[in-house]
């Protein structure tokens, strides 16, 4: 489906300024908390101080009597007609708890008041009678018989049907390939380990914020810094039992999401409060609410074993993967089964994956969800095999790398992919070729995979009287997608980038768009843009045929120019557009696609040099290179930025980030002081190498680029630490404390 010779790209591959840039460097851009409607009330949420408790009663009367309080709502307000509080669906109960609080920070009630001070004061006056229950925080403990049960009605979904007793295991998924027993017989060297990672947060700098109005005719408008205005509308409609057509979600600028702003938290609550008060209501979370009350990514426990022949061919892999889904069901472990073997051609494997609930916040996606922890296990086993077999770690990966035709993440064979190409680039990289010298230093490498989702996108384009084109989309711009989409439209219709004006609009103003997530927008919305552009060209060709009085077939469009085959008549897109728009009806087109579940998949490989302080256990990142198959780098600067940002998030995850709980299940480090995301001083420059192996599923060969770069760092750094210290790290984070514990026995 790659329709264009890449060397002929005029716009794709250049580095123009982003259209929303000036607003963002001058402070004018409107983010979630910047919405200011006349007469807006301030909301605040009361959250559970307990990680697991029955909510016996909630008395809001004192809060309601506080002067300035306009409304108080609880889970009871989310019960739909004909239902009871016991039947509150998970989606609703995570927004305002039903019968139970399932994690510390679980929203219990919300207040709207004349200002924030009063709203906060009122939440303190709400009296909740809790019956505190035993807490389970560890994923393996939660799977044990006798563990405190979060949901009495939950029965494990297994390959052989549902379980027969209450369980915290949401689902047991099995994926089997080949003959694992035969594989072990062929294996000469085996590496195995018991790996675990901690729950971590996406750590976007902008706290969630939403503002809602509810008019007397039932028309609801919600401003939200969501990653997906359309899914937010759907979920709000479901939770409130209000017709979807009566809800409009206006996406504001969004200050980071990384998957964490896919879920709804404030949207239904502000709408509910707006309904009760008849006034606009705005809620902005505090930072500790973001940590404790939104959706971090699961902690994991992965037991894995990899076998290879003496020549280094992987022949058998087995893994038992348990993922914390937080307080409610999810499919994090299931995702992991799609990723853990995906970079390699392994004839025999057997995966058992367990999605498990624990008394922690309901998890959400975080950049390549589930894959980093899987790679933390797999890529360390490969490193161990490379030492045992005395084969260079990159060459060992290269000889086993997945390629076109290898079984892909869903069992279907891959189309064209670039894992081999990036490994070759890594071997040839200045970083890998330069020696690393000095004591306490080590170099680590690791590959990573993400399947990249595609899903549904819609855009509208309309030609202006001066021949420029407006591009209307519905995907919030997290990191430059206005630019990357405008560039694809400019490429399609042969105009300058500056002649395309992209705008992100609300759910009433464009067709359906799935979330800005999964590295799908530049890919799937790019396909919609390409389709809309081609429709414009077709429409213009038709009108031009009348104007020029030639048959349609006689008109060609190439390199931005319409011309008759004999060359007698010609005009650029802009010239023709000006002529056509001036005379006929408006010139518009739309592109609307369902690009399927998956893109072609994307691979990253990272090289890192570390130095481990033997006295303090602190790991210092000396040098870092991120290599990735990016398909086609539409805007190389923003592609590089994705690789760099993902790598640094991975560095934080590897070294210091973790949800730290006390025994009662209280997160005790819910601030940017003690939840330690990397600062400028903690990382070096991140070198990038962009490899372009076009994805045949996209007209310009685009692959999603945002997710893969967070996958390799955990394992790459662990491999580097192992080489620097001689001690393999099975547990994240590799904090100074843990390094001292494992290398110096400081316990």
């Amino acid at each position, binding site marked *: 489906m790659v329709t264009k010779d890449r060397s002929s790209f005029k716009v794709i591959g250049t580095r123009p300024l982003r259209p929303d840039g000036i607003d963002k460097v001058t402070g004018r851009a409107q983010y979630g908390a910047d919405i200011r409607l006349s007469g807006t009330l301030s909301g605040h949420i009361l959250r559970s101080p307990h990680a697991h408790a029955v909510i016996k009663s909630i008395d809001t009367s004192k809060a309601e009597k506080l002067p300035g309080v306009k409304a108080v709502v609880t889970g009871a307000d989310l019960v739909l007609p004909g239902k009871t509080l016991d039947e509150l669906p998970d989606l609703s109960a995570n927004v305002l708890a039903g019968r139970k609080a399932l994690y510390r920070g679980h929203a219990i009630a919300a207040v709207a008041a004349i200002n924030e*001070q009063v709203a*906060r*004061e009122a939440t303190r006056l709400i009296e909740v009678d809790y019956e505190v229950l035993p807490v389970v925080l560890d994923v393996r403990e939660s799977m044990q018989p006798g563990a405190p049960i979060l949901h009495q009605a939950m029965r494990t979904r297994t390959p052989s049907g549902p379980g027969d007793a209450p369980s915290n295991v949401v689902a047991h998924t099995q994926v089997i390939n080949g003959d694992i027993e035969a594989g072990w017989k062929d294996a000469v060297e085996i590496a195995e380990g018991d790996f675990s990672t901690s729950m971590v947060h996406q750590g976007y700098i902008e706290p969630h914020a939403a503002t809602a109005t509810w008019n007397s005719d039932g028309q609801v408008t919600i401003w939200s810094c969501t990653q997906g205005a359309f899914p937010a509308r759907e979920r709000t409609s479901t939770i409130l039992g209000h017709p979807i057509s009566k809800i409009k979600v206006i996406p504001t600028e969004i200050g980071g999401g990384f998957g964490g702003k896919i879920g709804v938290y404030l949207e239904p609550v502000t709408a509910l409060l707006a309904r009760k008060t008849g006034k606009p209501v705005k809620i902005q979370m505090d930072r500790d609410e973001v940590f404790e009350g939104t959706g971090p990514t699961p902690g994991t426990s992965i037991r894995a074993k990899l076998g290879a022949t003496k020549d280094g061919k992987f022949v058998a892999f087995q893994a038992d993967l348990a993922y914390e889904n937080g307080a409610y069901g999810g499919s994090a472990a299931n995702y992991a089964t799609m990723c853990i073997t995906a970079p390699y051609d392994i004839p025999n494997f057997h995966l058992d994956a367990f999605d498990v609930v624990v008394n922690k916040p309901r998890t959400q996606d975080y950049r390549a969800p589930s894959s980093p922890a899987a790679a933390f296990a797999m890529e360390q086993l490969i490193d161990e095999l490379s030492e045992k077999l005395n084969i260079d770690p990159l060459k060992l990966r290269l000889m086993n790398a997945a390629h076109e035709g290898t079984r892909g993440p869903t069992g279907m064979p891959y189309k064209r992919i670039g894992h081999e190409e990036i490994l070759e680039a890594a071997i040839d990289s200045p970083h890998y070729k330069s020696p690393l010298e000095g004591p306490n230093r080590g170099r680590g490498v690791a590959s990573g995979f993400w399947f990249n989702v595609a899903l549904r996108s819609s855009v509208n384009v309309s030609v202006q009287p001066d021949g420029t084109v407006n591009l209307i989309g519905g995907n919030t711009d997290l990191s430059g997608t206005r630019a990357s989409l405008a560039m694809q439209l400019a490429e399609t219709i042969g105009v300058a980038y500056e002649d395309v004006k992209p705008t992100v609009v609300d759910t009433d103003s464009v067709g359906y768009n799935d979330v800005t997530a999964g590295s799908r927008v530049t890919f799937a919305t790019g396909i919609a843009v390409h389709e809309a552009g081609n429709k414009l060209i077709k429409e213009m060709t038709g009108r031009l045929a009348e104007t020029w009085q030639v048959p349609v077939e006689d008109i060609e469009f190439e390199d931005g120019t319409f011309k008759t085959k004999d060359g007698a008549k010609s005009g650029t897109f802009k010239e023709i557009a000006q002529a056509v728009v001036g005379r006929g009806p408006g010139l518009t087109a739309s592109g609307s696609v369902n690009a399927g579940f998956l893109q072609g998949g994307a691979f990253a490989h990272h090289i890192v040099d570390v130095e481990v302080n033997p*006295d*303090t*256990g*602190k790991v210092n990142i000396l040098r870092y290179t991120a290599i990735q198959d990016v398909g086609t780098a539409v805007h190389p600067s923003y592609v590089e930025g994705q690789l760099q940002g993902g790598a640094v998030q991975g560095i934080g995850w590897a*070294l*210091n980030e973790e949800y*730290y709980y006390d025994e009662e299940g209280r997160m*005790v*480090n819910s601030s940017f*002081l*003690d939840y*330690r995301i*990397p*600062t400028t*001083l*903690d990382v070096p420059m991140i070198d990038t190498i962009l490899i372009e192996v076009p994805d045949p599923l996209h007209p310009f060969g685009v692959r999603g680029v945002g997710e893969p770069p967070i996958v390799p760092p955990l394992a790459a750094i662990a491999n580097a630490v192992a080489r620097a210290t001689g001690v393999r790290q099975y547990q994240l984070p590799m*904090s*100074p*404390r843990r390094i*001292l*514990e494992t290398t*110096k026995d*400081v*316990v």
Partner: protein
Amino acid sequence: MQARNYVAPSSIDEAVAALQAGNGANRAFAGGTDVIIQVRENRRAVDTLVDIKSIPELIGITHKPDGGLRLGAATPCAQIYRDPQVKARFPALVDSASLIGGVQIQSRASLGGNLCNSSPAADSIPTLIALGAIAEIAGPSGRRNVAVEDFCTGPGQNVLQPGELLVALEFPSPAANSGAAFERFIPRNEMDIAVVNAAANITLSADGSTFQAARIAIGAVAPTPLYVAAAGQALAGKPVNDDSIAAAAEAARAAATPITDMRGSAAQRKHLVGVLVTSVLRTAIDRARG
């Protein structure tokens, strides 16, 4: 919660009166980087916030004729570490003042505030103790002096009585052939609370071969920053060598009674006390030898 009132007295007497009026519910602040946040996050209830930055005596750096130093309690860290004479003569103060928060914090936060906040992990208190600083306190019944090692009485608690205000920190002139240093250990490279910190102030013999005196203090390993007299005594009269340093480090380790929390384990902290005391002693020796 928010404070209910804000006042900015222009004299110490007015400040003392304002603090006294609250019966303990009013609180002085300088940079506000601790107090404003603690009040906002309901970690401290305050009725009136008393902004002491308009009191001339509380801001400023005075290098005294006898070589001593007087720091107004509200003097921002940035002003301290930019002062050329402080840099030259009290480098350990620069070590501490340039580590408290980021530059946005250092432009406001003061050493007096750091002391009055009385965190066990405070990044200036071990240095103040090692340097032998005296806290000058004004109160309803006049002024009194308290040695900094006696100032803190528990996490967030200190000797200040209702109505009392820290006015200044007084430092004796550095002795000949002396040197001091401060270090902390944090998991990141900035913007963190110390897992452990340590300061040392040593005086060497004129030929630099022997310790004559030493003051060593450690933080984040007890309910208050600790002055470890035994560690200093272990050095007095001893030759400058690895064994002496190790003995001092061991004495400091023995004095530490750390806990395990999100910032570090007890064992890690004990271990780090030895590492940091060794390190600050080496830096202090280098500085003493010029």
